[in-house]
């Protein structure tokens, strides 16, 4: 008899039960890497090739970031499958990244047989203990019978409320044992209505907004997670309220809208940051007042009353005291708030933002995007890329100066077009995340913007891209430095460039070694054609743009300073 065959109607191995549970949960893609402790599940997977596509990565960290990219675009939980010991520990960075950026993941790790637990067996680690602070929930399955119920819980917890990563550790014996399979989706005991906002709260919020002279909307990741883009536009338009996005909120509000003012934060726009000090009512939607956005809290939004629309009760009053906390998903909250909002007009207030824009254009943007001499600038490359792609690309950014430039200068025309590592700031995120995004959105042009440093952290995933024939576009902005750290050393550490200069391989030769087409551009005159070639290519393409070596991202709110201390140079 074949291994893993169904013996009677429902009696199957634990490994097959895992596969069946994934199918029941609508999973059709897994990012993984096999190994000893997960072999029974890989054997079961072999019979599920038609139902579930498995992407073999080159490092388990790649699996976690790819699953993140996939989850960001689809809203479904990204699934990783890895072995015990080092396989599991290699997921840790990606899990921590997903936790802080609220991305749903279900990570399945193999584990040694339950009788070996705690004995320092081969490739045994206490991955449950290790991931407790960075998962929404985790569980170790030691008995095959537990599999269906635990898998159902895992998918529920990963995606409900504020999404996040869940880890399920399955001992080898549980994978091999047989069990009677039946599946039921998880139904929570009861819905917790303790926090549900009542009509009074929306009335109060409405009143604050209607009486405001300088209302301001902060749109964060929660708008995208909740699919509240339309409700946000309705609110902003009805009361003529300027809108700024956080890093993760980018593309939640159309950038060509007259109410869109730009990005908040350390490298956000000048006006958006300065005006936080002038606002009298701030409507914070699905954002958590991260320190990059607030700067020094002692000086943050001192004139404003704060309405905080947030699904996670633990975020209310965590950083900033909310005058009207609304514990709800963004879509429902905005739908309930709109009827209490009166039509209004705030021309003078909006003009203040425009005046700042003019200064920013003059002091920063003009030189960044339209330099006449010198090497290619990052902003210039991103701006040209935005024009040629007509703002339609799905941009996946790594971490560093190039990330801030991409956030600032790409003009997003559609929602769900921006994926990056924000809270954890994980270098090496973009390359694997990009192919995760490509699988989730095969019809979109997915372009990873990566620095020369970050690229080398996960470059082995070029192998995945090549083997799986994923037409991901990679734009490396190469300044031969760990740019963001170098910038800080220049501005705050007296130009003491401590270990930030990096010698890199020939990226084009490297891409070629993987069978991926590539092109290097160093001259301004070749930039447009290079970008076009990258975007038009039917297959994967690596474009290396050699940029100005020592150049800084401005505006900048110095670390620990008030956002009103934002510098233009």
């Amino acid at each position, binding site marked *: 008899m074949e291994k893993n065959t169904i013996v009677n109607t429902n009696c199957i191995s634990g490994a097959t039960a895992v596969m069946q549970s994934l199918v029941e949960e609508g999973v059709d893609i897994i990012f993984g890497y096999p190994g000893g402790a997960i072999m029974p599940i890989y054997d079961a997977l072999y019979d599920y090739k038609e139902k579930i596509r498995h992407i073999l990565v080159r490092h388990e960290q790649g699996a976690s970031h790819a699953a993140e990219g996939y989850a960001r675009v689809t809203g479904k939980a990204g699934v990783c499958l890895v072995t015990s010991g080092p396989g599991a520990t290699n997921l840790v960075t990606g899990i921590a990244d997903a936790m802080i950026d609220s991305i749903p993941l279900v990570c399945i790790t193999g584990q040694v047989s339950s009788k070996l637990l705690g004995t320092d067996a081969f490739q045994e680690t206490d991955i*449950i203990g290790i991931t*407790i*602070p960075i998962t929404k*929930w985790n569980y170790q399955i030691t008995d095959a019978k537990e599999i269906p119920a635990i898998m159902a819980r895992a998918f529920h*917890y990963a995606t409900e409320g504020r999404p996040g990563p869940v880890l399920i550790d399955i001992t080898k014996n549980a994978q091999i044992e047989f069990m009677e399979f039946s599946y039921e989706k998880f139904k929570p005991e009861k819905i917790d209505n303790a926090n549900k906002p009542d009509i009074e709260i929306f009335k109060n919020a409405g009143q604050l907004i209607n009486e405001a002279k300088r209302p301001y909307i902060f749109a964060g990741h929660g708008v995208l997670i909740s699919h509240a883009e339309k409700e946000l536009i309705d609110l902003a338009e009805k009361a003529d309220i300027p809108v700024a996005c956080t890093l993760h909120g980018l593309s939640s509000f159309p950038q060509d809208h007259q109410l869109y003012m730009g990005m908040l934060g350390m490298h956000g726009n000048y006006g958006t940051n300065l005006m936080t000090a002038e606002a009298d009512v701030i409507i914070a939607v699905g954002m958590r007042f991260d320190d990059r956005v607030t700067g020094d809290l002692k000086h943050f939004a001192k004139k404003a009353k704060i309405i905080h629309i947030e699904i996670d*009760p*633990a975020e*209310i009053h965590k950083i900033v005291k909310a005058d009207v906390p609304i514990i709800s998903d963004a879509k429902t909250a905005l739908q309930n708030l709109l009827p209490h909002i009166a039509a209004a007009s705030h021309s003078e207030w909006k003009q203040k933002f425009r005046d700042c824009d003019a200064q920013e254009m003059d002091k920063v943007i003009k030189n960044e995007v339209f330099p006449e001499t010198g090497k290619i600038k990052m902003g210039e490359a991103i701006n040209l890329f935005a024009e040629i792609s007509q703002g339609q690309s799905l941009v996946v950014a790594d971490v560093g100066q190039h990330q801030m430039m991409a956030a600032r200068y790409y003009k997003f025309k559609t929602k769900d077009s921006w994926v990056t590592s924000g809270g954890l700031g994980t270098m090496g995120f973009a390359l694997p995340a990009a192919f995760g995004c490509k699988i989730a959105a095969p019809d979109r042009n997915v372009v990873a913007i990566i620095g020369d440093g970050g690229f080398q952290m996960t470059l082995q995933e070029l192998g995945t891209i090549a083997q799986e024939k994923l037409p991901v576009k990679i734009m490396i902005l190469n300044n031969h430095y760990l740019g963001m750290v170098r910038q800080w050393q220049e501005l705050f550490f007296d130009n003491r460039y401590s270990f930030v200069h990096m010698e890199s391989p020939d990226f084009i030769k490297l891409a070629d070694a993987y069978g991926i087409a590539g092109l290097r551009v160093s001259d301004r005159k070749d930039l447009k054609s290079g970008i076009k070639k990258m975007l038009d290519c039917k297959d994967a393409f690596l474009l290396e743009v050699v940029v100005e070596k020592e150049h800084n991202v401005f505006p900048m709110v110095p670390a620990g300073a008030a956002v009103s201390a934002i510098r233009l140079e």
Partner: protein
Amino acid sequence: MNDYTLLVLTYNVPGVLHRISSIFTRRKVNIENLHVSETKMIGMSRFTIVVKSDKELVEKIVSQIRKIIEVKEVLLHTTEELIHREVALIKVAVKQQDHQKLEDKSIQLDAKFTVVNDNEVTLEKCSTSDEITKMYKELSDYKIVEFIRSGRVALLF
């Protein structure tokens, strides 16, 4: 800085203690006293956690504990708002001829007196934290061999 007691009702499964305690560790708040046991509801445990901290920080910690999937409920109280007890066991080195004197004192201290051997006795007291500390101070003339206090259990008024 104040004394706060958190009463946490959870499902009785392994790993919950670790999740709860890591929320305190992250914020560098020391757990002064900890007790956990199953409640009269089968499968449910009650944690009694005592910390010294300021109100704002403790409230944030409570919010984060509530997020834990196995946690059903968290109540936060200052020590005065609860009925609470700890048990203390003290082993005292005392020669046989002085046992009676200590036994008389133990009645005064409302502690149970037990002879271990000719040279050692134990006192056992169940009371509030403050009363136990008071008793310990009253025995300063004696040689304390060992002193242990239990976790605090608490009920709402």
